[in-house]
């Protein structure tokens, strides 16, 4: 059986694309279970879904309102 290949790809100005991982632990200890073949991990810290990227790096506002 061949060793599993895990890769990390950095997207300039965006997240890390990770393939082959089982889980990703974010700064605050949140464990993200990997449930798709490639996941995007937040690098800017603005995501509401850490450790995952939610494209918040695209929003102009510093942080989005959490009013609902």
């Amino acid at each position: 059986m061949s060793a599993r290949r895990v890769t990390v790809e950095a997207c300039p100005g965006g997240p890390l694309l990770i393939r082959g991982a089982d889980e990703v632990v974010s700064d605050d200890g949140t464990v993200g279970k990997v449930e798709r073949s490639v996941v995007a991990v937040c690098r800017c810290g603005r995501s509401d879904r850490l450790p995952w990227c939610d494209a918040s790096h695209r929003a102009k506002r510093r942080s989005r309102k959490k009013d609902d």
Partner: protein
Amino acid sequence: MPEARAYGDVADCLGDRDFQLALWILYELHYRGFEGVDDAAEWDPLLLVSRAGLERTMEHAVRELVASTDHAPPALEPDSDPAPQVVKALVQMTIGDGVSPVATFLRRRATREEFRDYLAERAIYHLRESDPQSFVLPRIDGAAKAALAELQYDEYGGGRPDRLHATLFARALESLDMSTDVASYLPDVSGETLASVNLMSLFALNRRLRGAAMGHLAAFEATSSLPCEQILRGARRLKLPDAVQDYYDEHVEADAVHEQLAIRNICGNLVTAEPELADDVLFGAAACLAVDSRAGQKLLTDWQDRRDRKPTGSGRAEAAG
């Protein structure tokens, strides 16, 4: 009998329901066909000629729309490598203000009925989600093909039939007792929405336009995560069933991945392999933004018109914002 219309009666094909419905029906022969219609109709020469005529008119209109709106793509510097320029341009074109007016409306103001209208309008695409782009796979090669396959694999549930995005949407419709039969939405869908769906087939079914198909995909994915988050919040506000929330929830994370795959790994690699496609990629992205923006405007206008006709409902909904 509805009044017969001639080709020359079509003044604005991108908003013309008859025109777009005709094209949609011709395209559907390449996807699932129709019960009671011979499958061989897909390659009926007369129908192919008809389709080509409609497509030529549509492509011309899209090019005119792109040139006349603020969605026009930036010009590329001819003396330097086009691939990084295309990647940069795609990122810039899709940044905008990050929030679509339709998504904002759904998040803050939409009634349950208006949210259902939205699902009905979008059903025509989401029940066939990602199918157009699969036609492009055999038309590209190397790293771009591998990246498109990776993206499509995710769209198609990553090996899990119950996670097929089209199935997630069907489940959302079922949770609201809505039909999962595309044909049932045809009588009410707007010409503008049909145009936004036909645009994908136009690009994906014409090999000549494969660059535009991938540019369209990049713009579509890159402008999806943030609106899906807004729509998800709208669904929560209206306490819609879990299946509805699940569909939009899935798309926040999935499309954040797809945005990177589509812009960098698909379009970047495609232009590296076929530099002559650079302008087409940007045209496709601009076309997506311009045509989808028209479809969004049409939805908002229709909602507003309906509220104006029912003044009792609108005051309450306004206050919810």
